[in-house]
């Protein structure tokens, strides 16, 4: 167990009637990429604003680098890099000037800053656009500038709130790789997203948020082992009869069967040879079938099983 970089205990935050954070507990350790996964309105941004001491909260405590976080914890703040959900750059400054401005709020040494600004531009792939004003940048490039402004000063803790919204898959991969690179250089990262693929790809530990509560947390393997589902098998089958479906349900490890428009979906818990058993059944009954494929559970399934609803429309991701 590494040292704790961020510790949130029993955090409660209300907006009038609405409880945005409901006794939230989180701990982020050194060297981690910590994913905060949750659907829209689950309280990710609120949690981050609380960590940064921008918001009052009703209960609980927030510690960063082992110390209570306060608005005037300047020492702590100086070691944090923040990429907020909303793009925050100056319209009247060019890409390079923007990065220099924000980097300059942390780094006073001119030579060091120059180097850092240059590195941040390379990192975000904005070298060619250094003389551009934000207005002239595409949505994705603007996001990248937003990120560059937040990380140029090489902070020890980086907090990113959905930095890849509206970014094309190529840029996104580049950003994700960049984040992993920053992590390798020693920064702990808190990364919020509702794209589970992203989170799955880069995060070493994940907390799933729903309605302000942390419904599950752990490594992705841990999360997946938490749920009943071990494997999901899809088959194209024509004209399956109800009694056959009932028979399939009786097979070992199978706990849920859905049949719709010629697509059969079988959820199995654990077990190694589920597919073999099922195919045996189809062969013995001489039922014809088309394509067959098997899926391991995704975070979406984890979320679905824990909260009873879909994390998000998976068609959204590329």
């Amino acid at each position, binding site marked *: 167990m590494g040292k704790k970089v961020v510790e949130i205990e029993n955090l409660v935050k209300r*907006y009038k009637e609405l409880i945005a954070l409901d006794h939230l507990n989180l701990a982020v350790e050194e060297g981690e990429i910590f994913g905060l996964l949750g659907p829209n309105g689950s309280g990710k941004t609120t949690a981050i*604003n609380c960590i*940064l*001491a*921008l*918001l*009052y909260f009703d209960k609980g405590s927030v510690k960063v680098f082992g110390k209570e976080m306060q*608005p*005037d914890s*300047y*020492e*702590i*703040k*100086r*070691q*944090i890099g*923040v990429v*907020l*959900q*909303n*793009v*925050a*750059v*100056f319209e*009247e*400054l060019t890409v390079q*000037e923007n990065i220099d*401005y*924000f980097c*300059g*709020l*942390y780094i*006073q040494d001119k030579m060091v800053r120059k180097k850092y600004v240059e590195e941040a531009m390379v990192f975000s792939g904005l070298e060619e656009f250094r003389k551009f004003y934000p207005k002239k940048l595409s949505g994705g490039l603007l996001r990248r500038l937003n990120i560059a*402004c*937040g990380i140029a000063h090489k902070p020890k803790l980086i907090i990113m709130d959905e930095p890849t919204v509206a970014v094309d898959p190529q840029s996104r991969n580049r950003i994700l790789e960049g984040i992993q690179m920053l992590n390798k250089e020693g920064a702990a990262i808190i990364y919020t997203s509702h794209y589970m693929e992203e989170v799955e790809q880069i995060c070493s530990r994940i907390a799933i948020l729903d309605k302000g509560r942390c419904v599950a947390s752990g490594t992705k393997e841990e999360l997946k082992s938490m749920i009943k589902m071990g494997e999901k098998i899809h088959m194209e089958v024509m004209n399956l009869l109800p009694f056959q479906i009932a028979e399939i349900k009786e097979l070992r490890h199978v706990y849920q069967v859905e049949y719709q428009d010629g697509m059969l979906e079988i959820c199995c818990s654990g077990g190694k040879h589920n597919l073999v058993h099922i195919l045996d059944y189809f062969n013995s009954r001489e039922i014809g079938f088309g394509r067959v494929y098997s899926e391991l559970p995704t975070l979406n399934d984890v979320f679905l099983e824990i909260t009873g609803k879909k994390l998000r429309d998976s068609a959204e991701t590329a």
Partner: protein
Amino acid sequence: MFFRIYKYSLLRSTRDRLMVFWNLVFPIILGSLFQVAFGNYTEKEVLFHQIPVAYVKEEGADGNFTELLEILETDSELIQVQTVGKDKAEQLLRDGEVEGIYYNKTAEETDGQAEGIYDNEPGKETDGQEELGITLVVQEQDMNQSILNSILEQYERTCATLLTIGKEYPEGIQEAAKLLEEDTKYLKENSMGAASDNGILDYFYSLIAMNCLMGATTGLLCSVEFKADLSALAARRVVAGHSRFQVLWPDLAAKITLQFIYIVFTACYLMFVLHVPLGEQWGFLLLTIFVGSLLGIFLGFFIGVAGRMQYSMKEALCILIMMVSSFFSGLMMDGMQRLVEQYAPVFARINPASLIVKSFYSLNIYETYGRYLQNLGTMLVLILVLAAGSFAMVRRERYASI
């Protein structure tokens, strides 16, 4: 760090074309339009239009008053006296050639004679003290007439005493004239409309006042970039690991600098290109402009940090205040100040644009700085109130919602 943020702040403002237009180009265009509208004029005409008055002096009447009028005409250039006969005087008054008639009679005859001159005229008569036998007849009561009246009153009040010992103090009349001059200036300033006299210059002063108050929109921007619940930019600056104010000061300083430069530029354009005689006391002119800029910026900053209105609403409010304030300082209408002074004296005394206009005005007409400093002082108090109010409102560093 201060200097770098300051520099970037300057850079950003100068690149904001809309801001540059409103703060620099617009006043110059408006000034030029005023110039086209009002044409040429000399400083004298602009500042003091001498009040024409007829003077009917009887044989053996009090000569001291004659002397006073002479001083007021030649030295103070306050009035323009035509010494004429009674009939001619009445004719002049009827034709509007003069604003009033001073009758100076031998003391015994005073009673009865002055009355009933205009039995069928709407004229108004002000009786002088009987022993002195001086009366004033005017056609209607307004600014100039009240100046004429105050000359008479002053003469009665002060001169009478001075004159009784006049032999020993021949400078008595000089002193009386001096007093009168100050009095009159006060009268004029406070009814500023002083319409026919200095109305034209008022337009230009108001223009500069408006330019100062335009700083409000700039101040508003400062507040938006300062309070984390107003913009993501502000949030980003707040989490950067410095006291919020360390980033605010250079920002404010830059905005004030720029506003000051803009207005100085406008003023220079008015003075050297359009030849508008704004005054010659450079130091004080600059000081006024500087304090005016401060006032504008802090007004905007205050509006920005107060309440939870939307930005566009706040911006509209800034512009509204600027327009209303300038309007009542006489930007668009002659004699506006006088009306305000009459019907809303308190407002007249704290209306930022009026204060700026009055500061310029009092610089121009008084030899002493009392009035000027009073106006400047009021402005400073306003700034202090706005600043204190703003900082009271931004004491909190966390927000209930963002």
